[in-house]
């Protein structure tokens, strides 16, 4: 029984400790995927090189995992041959070789729970030490023993009856677990929280909308800050050198009717630089002041070194939902550069400080106002990718316009608080693309066109590939240098998730969820 014994020994070490330092040095162990974006810097780049433009056409399905519920958006975490998958209020540890369950944990979803403005999804776990962390739809942060799934602690983050839910994967940093919330269409007041990784006690809370007496509250007319939203529903990035967390915030409430909240509405549609130790706001940058188009700035911030006007700077790069690509100094938040990367009809451009020069008459109206991009944005929550080898920023783009409507908005806790919406153009007038931007300038290097606007993110690899997904179910590989399609597989369901790559026993795999199935491919 030599084979069984060998398998048993490898399972016995499956839940090896993941100290903070291992995640900091994630690039040194490319066989694992230790944090949401693959590394703290938000790159979604795999250093694995086994799959290349030459051999990727031979990729085959290795195994498939099926979830009980539809539409899966999970980014799995892979640690030493064990993969952690989630669906709403459920975590499963599975054997990364075969897809077989090792343990699973579930927490009942309250019968009266409403997800107001978003789907019933979960985007994954974080690991730190011997613990796996997950947020739940009923707004608990839960710590599970990595070997068994047993609960170590459960902490209430917010009240789901107000519309607060957790869909994002937590971010585990040095001794703390950071989490954001969804619920912007219920007019909740947004925050980013950190909890002690061992005890589950709250370490700090940073409100994304200031209260009376705090700077920024003057950017809200009257009492409108109380239902100001600015939710934090996508996992941020982290710079271990400076100890700063970068986390994006969502739309102001109500989304499409800004009449009662005149002002810039800080800190909505912004990126926040937060001291991980204290939760203090170091700086903010607002992409879309007084947003009325639902252009959340929750895209994963990408931390890179870029050459700006001849000087190498430590920057935060992001392709925002509003159609512009930005480079910000990540120590100070200073706007360094901006460039349009998708069709937009709402701004003449950005001024010297990065503020949009808004074209009058582009706000939602009773009769409908046609604007690009649509409320789903030029891109959305799904991840971009950065390859340090090609120096390109890869982003899945939605080329889609819509008629924006403004309707009445009355705030009631736990109820829909939108104040409008959109009617999209006919399907054959919409399309999508994966675009490769020069990371320093945002200039287009290549484009791969998609039939429909994408809901899937991208991942680049050291082997020279970019993986992505389509709304029609295509999972595909592109040449990272030139964008040429090299391989494609029809998964049979829309892809609304981000790819990852990992290796077991020296063999590289790529993985993607499609609707309710999770696919793993290898040579």
């Amino acid at each position, binding site marked *: 029984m030599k084979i069984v014994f060998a398998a048993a020994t490898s399972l016995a070490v499956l839940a090896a400790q993941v100290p903070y330092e291992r995640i900091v040095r994630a690039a040194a162990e490319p066989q694992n995927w230790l944090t949401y974006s693959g590394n703290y810097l938000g790159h979604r780049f795999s250093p694995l090189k086994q799959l290349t433009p030459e051999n990727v056409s031979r990729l085959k399905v290795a195994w498939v995992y099926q979830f009980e519920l539809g539409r899966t958006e999970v980014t799995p975490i892979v640690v030493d041959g064990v993969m952690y998958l989630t669906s709403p209020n459920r975590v499963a540890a599975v054997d990364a070789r075969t897809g077989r369950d090792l343990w699973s944990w579930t927490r009942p979803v309250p019968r009266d729970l409403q997800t107001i403005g978003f789907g019933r999804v979960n985007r994954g776990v974080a690991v730190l030490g011997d613990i796996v962390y997950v947020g739940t739809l009923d707004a608990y942060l839960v710590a599970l023993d990595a070997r068994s799934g047993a609960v170590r602690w459960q902490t209430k983050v917010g009240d789901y009856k107000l519309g607060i839910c957790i869909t994002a994967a937590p971010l585990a940093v040095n001794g703390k677990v950071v989490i954001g919330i969804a619920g912007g269409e219920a007019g909740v007041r947004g925050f980013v929280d950190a909890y002690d990784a061992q005890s589950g006690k709250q370490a700090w809370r940073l409100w994304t909308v200031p209260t009376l007496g705090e700077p920024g509250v003057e950017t809200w007319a009257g009492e409108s800050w109380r239902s100001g939203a600015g939710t934090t529903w996508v996992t941020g990035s982290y710079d271990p050198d400076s100890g700063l967390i970068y986390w994006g915030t969502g739309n102001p409430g109500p989304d499409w009717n800004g009449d009662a909240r005149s002002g810039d509405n800080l800190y909505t549609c912004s990126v926040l630089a937060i001291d991980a130790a204290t939760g203090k706001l170091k700086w903010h940058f607002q992409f879309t002041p007084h947003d009325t188009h639902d252009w959340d700035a929750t895209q994963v911030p990408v931390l890179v070194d870029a050459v700006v006007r001849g000087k190498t700077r430590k920057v935060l790069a992001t392709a925002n939902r509003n159609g512009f690509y930005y480079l910000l100094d990540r120590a100070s938040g200073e706007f360094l550069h901006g460039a349009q990367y998708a069709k937009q009809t709402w701004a003449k451009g950005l001024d010297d400080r990065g503020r949009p020069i808004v074209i009058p008459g582009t706000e939602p109206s*009773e009769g*409908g106002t046609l604007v690009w991009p649509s409320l789903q944005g030029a891109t959305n929550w799904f991840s971009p990718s950065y390859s340090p080898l090609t120096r390109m920023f890869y982003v899945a783009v939605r080329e889609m316009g819509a008629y924006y409507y403004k309707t009445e908005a009355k705030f009631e806790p736990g109820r829909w608080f939108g104040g409008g919406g959109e009617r999209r153009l006919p*399907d054959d007038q919409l399309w999508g693309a994966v675009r490769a931007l020069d990371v320093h300038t945002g200039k287009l290097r290549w484009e791969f066109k998609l*039939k429909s606007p994408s809901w899937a993110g991208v991942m680049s690899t050291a082997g020279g590939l970019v993986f992505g997904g389509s709304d029609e179910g295509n999972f595909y590989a592109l040449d990272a240098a030139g964008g040429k399609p090299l391989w494609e597989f029809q998964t049979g369901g829309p892809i609304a998730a981000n790819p990852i790559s990992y290796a077991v026993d020296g063999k590289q795999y790529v993985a993607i969820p499609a609707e309710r199935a999770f696919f793993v491919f290898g040579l």
Partner: protein
Amino acid sequence: MKLLWLAVCAAAALAQTKTPLQTPEDVARGRRLFESQCTGCHGQTAEGGRGPNLRQARLRRVTDDASLFDVIQDGIPGTEMPGMWYLSEREVRQVAGYLRDIARTPVAAVSGDAAHGRELFEGKGGCLSCHIAAGRGVAAGPDLSDIGARRSVAHLRESLTAPAATTPEGFLLVDAVASGRPVSGVRVNEDTFTIQIRDAAGRFHSFRKSSLSSLKRRVGESSMPSYSGKLAAAEIDDLVAYLAGLRGEP
């Protein structure tokens, strides 16, 4: 904000009161909302277009106040009717109030002879060679078995006299050339890498788009011929009357 259809479900589940609001102010507001957001399909006066005539006492999907509210707010899954998920509960009830108000003044019935229309449909018009109605015919064009419930009289008339003006969704004509061989037909499906085409004989063709030497999309074209020179005006009236009576299975 990401998945709007779930917002719809959430808002629908929360709605407690679904009765139409029918004060003159509510009806006027409902009319303004209707005119800004519904007339593209249902026509400026709600007498129908691409969508059905709403100036009638009985609507197929509406059995009571609650179902009227739900159809406006959530749309009708599997059809072209989208939900007006972004209206407030009060606004939905105001639109419902306007629809109840106009239902009291239904439009005049069609004038043609439906029995004669059926003869034309099955005989001289040759319609069954491209359409299925009540289980008979050929499925090259849209199934017409319930077309009278889904399209207005004006739209039916236009489809007969100027069919290219309103080509139905799902019937985009494409011309592909694969290995020097031309294939034309209706695009039945497409993704980023592949396309599926049904030709006039009903055969399915599947291609990788990268293997095609050309792929032309005939946007705004229809394979349906115009009947304006082929049938007399009275015959078109009769055909419209027959089509307007096709309401599908009860």
